[in-house]
Structure formats: C-alpha cells, structure tokens
C-alpha cells in the first residue's frame, strides 16, 4: 500500500483574466518521483506556488498528510539571479536555510549543513564563493540549500534547463539517490522528456484546461510528447 503525501483535489487557480487551472486532480505518494511536463505558460510554476502555500486556490483544495506543518517542503526555484560577484561561500549559502533564533549555527546545525553538502557533492568546494561556481555546481548548491532542513518533499522547477547533458544526468542522479535513500519525495518540473522518462515514477502532463496523470512505465517518449502538445 502506498501512503499519500499530498492530494490535490478539484484545484482551481485563476488570475485576473486568466484561469490557469479549473479542475486539477492528482496525488503524490510518499517516496514518489513525479515529473511535471507541459508547455511554457501552462501553469507549472503556479502549481508549485500553490503547493507551497504562497498562492490561495480559487476552488478545490490541497491536502497534506498528516498535516501541512509536518510536510516540510524544500524547493529549488526556477529563477535565481545570483551574479558573478555573489560573495557568500557555498557553505554559508547552504546555511542560510537553517532556521532558528540564535545568531550563530549550533554544532548540530553545522553538521546538518555538512551533511547536505556531502550528499549533493559540493563539500570539496564548500569555501568557494558561490558566484564563482559553475552552472552545475550552483544547481547542486541550490539543491543542498533546499534539503538542509530535511524536507519530506523536494520540488525542482526546471533546475536542469541551463545545464549541459552530462551535468543534467549528474544532478538527477543525486536527486534520485536522495529519493531512494533519504525518503525524500520528488516533484520535478522539466521540459526534457528523455530526462523525465529516465528518472520519474509518475508523470503529470498539463495542457490548458486538461491534465493526465499516470505511471511513467506506461509511456514512451513519443506518447509523452503527444500528451503535452497543444
């Protein structure tokens, strides 16, 4: 039996003059690896913002199990404009997401940061300013920051878009490893169908006004292309 982590029921989201979703339904199981595919502007980032609670649904609901508070979410956003002069070291950057009231990090919290850097393979470059890291290293640092508080759900919004082929697979290998060994459920937005096919267990294909949710194993890349084409 699979346990649900999040259930989206009859979700509707509208902006002024723009109904993004009308009746969206799907379930994310614990330990699942869901990929979200769909054209630009179909509402993938909007859906994420709703899952994070940053956006109120206009209808329907999102259920969290056992509750919203226990369902900690780590998120690697689609855009993050840190320039070349961005000064913080990767270690300090990862530590930003450790919440608490003490001005300094405790021993246990330092350990948390080191663990996150170890599993994302940035420990060797921990003292390098993030602005000088390569594209792939930056994405791994973002990933480390997202998982430093040991979230139940990890959301990646097109984190591979700027990476070359080799680095894409490297990053997704890390994510898959987290998924399998650390009990982290993954919700992964991408335009890259071969990548989605290789790593995901389920797919959510979005089209204006409709959706399809199912087992990745049942789909070929050609079929995936078909269900997302407008």
């Amino acid at each position, binding site marked *: 039996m699979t346990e649900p982590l999040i259930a989206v029921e009859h979700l509707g989201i509208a902006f002024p003059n723009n109904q993004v979703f009308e009746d969206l339904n799907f379930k994310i199981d614990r330990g699942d690896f869901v990929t979200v595919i769909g054209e630009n502007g179909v509402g993938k980032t909007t859906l994420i913002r709703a899952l*994070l*609670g*940053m956006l109120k649904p206009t209808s329907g609901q999102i259920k969290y199990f056992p509750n919203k508070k226990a369902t900690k979410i780590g*998120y690697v*956003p689609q*855009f*993050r404009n*840190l320039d070349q*002069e961005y*000064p*913080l*070291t990767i*270690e*300090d*950057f990862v530590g*930003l*997401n*450790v*919440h*608490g*009231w*003490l*001005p*300094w990090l405790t021993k246990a919290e330092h350990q948390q940061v080191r663990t996150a850097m170890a599993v994302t393979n940035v420990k060797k470059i921990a*003292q390098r*300013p993030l602005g000088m890291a390569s594209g792939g290293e930056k994405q791994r640092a*973002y990933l480390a*920051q997202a998982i430093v508080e040991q979230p139940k759900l990890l959301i990646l919004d097109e984190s591979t878009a700027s990476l070359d082929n080799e680095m894409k697979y490297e990053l997704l290998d890390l994510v898959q490893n987290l998924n399998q060994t650390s009990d982290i459920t993954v919700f992964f937005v991408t335009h890259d169908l071969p990548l989605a096919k290789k790593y995901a267990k389920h797919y959510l294909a979005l089209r204006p006004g409709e959706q399809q949710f199912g087992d990745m194993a049942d789909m070929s890349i050609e079929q995936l292309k078909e269900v997302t084409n407008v």
Partner: protein
Amino acid sequence: MFSLAFMQNAYLAGTFIAIICGTIGVFVIARNLSFLTHTLSEIGFAGAAFGIFMGWTALSGMLIFTVISSVIVGQMSVKQSRREASISAISALFIGLGILFLSLSNQTSSYATSILFGSVIGIAHADVIRVAVLSGIVLLVMLGLYRPLKFDSFDAIGAKVSGLWTTAISVVFLVLVAMSVSVAAQIVGSLLIFILLTLPAAAARYFVHTVSKMIGLSIIFALIGVWLGLYLSYVTNLPVSFFIASIECLFYFAALGFQRLRVGA
C-alpha cells in the same frame, strides 16, 4: 588629544557609529539599497532642520523623518522605490524642506554646515549617551533577527519560498537603517552618511566570503576610518568628513584592485 572632553566624546560616539554602520552596511549592500541610504540622508537633513525649528534636538527630528519615510518605502515594492526619477524628486523635496526649516528657525549658517557635514566640536556628553542607546537598540534588533535578515538579504528568492515574512523583515530593516542614518549624522553629517553605510561593507565583500566575517571586516574598515579621520582632523584642523570619506574610498578602491588581481582580469 584625549584630555579634551569633546575629543573623548567624539571618539566614543564615533566608535558606536562605526560599529552599527559597519554591521548594517553589509545588509545594505546585499539588498542593493545604497541608493536609499543616500535619499535617507537627505531626508535626515530635512528632519534635523525640522527638529531645530521645533526646538527639539536635531537627532529627534531626524529620527522621526527617516523612520516614517523608511516605513513608507518599505511598503512600496523595491521596483517602485528604485525609480530614479521619483528618488530624485523625493531628495529635492526634502533638501528644499530642510533649507526652509533652517531659515525659519533663524539658525546661523554654521549650524547648517554642521548638520550637513558633521562636526566634532558639537558633540556633547548627552549626545554620546543618545548615540550609545540607539546603537544598542539597533544591534539588539539585528541580533534577534539575524538569521531571517541574513537569508532575506543574501537570497531573497530562497527566503521567500521558504516561507519567511520577507515584507516584515524589509520594513524592520529599513527602520534600522533610518536609525543608523540618524545616529551617524551626528558625526559625519547627513550628506556623508552613505559613505559609512556603504563603502566599508562594499569593500569587505571582496576580501571575505561569509556574512559574519564581512560584518567583522566592515566594522574594522569603518573604525579605522572614523578613528584615523578624527585624529587627522584634530591635527590638521580640517573637516573630519573629508578624512573619513578619503579613507573609506581608499579601502574601497584597494578592494577593487585586489579583486582584479585575483580574478586576473
């Protein structure tokens, strides 16, 4: 030099000012708010003149003006508040107001120069106490808010998606900046405040790469500028702000040079 009471006062107040400006400055730079400290110092000038006009201290007038305007700015989105034309308009308005209040209050023009450019001789013991108390408050609030403030300043997008109250943090921070501006104006004058609030921190980020080290180095740069500036001003009888400005610029350009060498560009 230290046998003179006003020099003792100047050094004490200068030390507090350097510490809070060095600290706050790191976040001012990280949040790209240099332009705002500039506007706030002009608003501070108007506030000081208003305070004198009302028969209060310059510091209270400054505090009222800068705190209120920073709360207003905090409510606007960053994009809105950055529009250059509106910034220039606001600055012009407040400089005008400052001049108006000064002339209404029948103060001599030397008073105006001391508000604008700072004055060492003007610092009384009571001023030092006020500066110390305000600095203490600013530092305590910073300490209490340190992690959220750090997150929001150095990774605004990450902080927002992690559920931090970023708007509240923004407003509180701007109030802290307003308080620091008012405090720093006591020595360097309202027109040169932005020097202490921006240059030491801007220089520090090229040498060190964690927030705590940046704060430490930025405080050191600010302290050297203020201490050395006061000394040189005492010896030469030239304005202290001139020396502070020159010393901080020196640090900043040295930092740029250092960065160039390291990147090898």
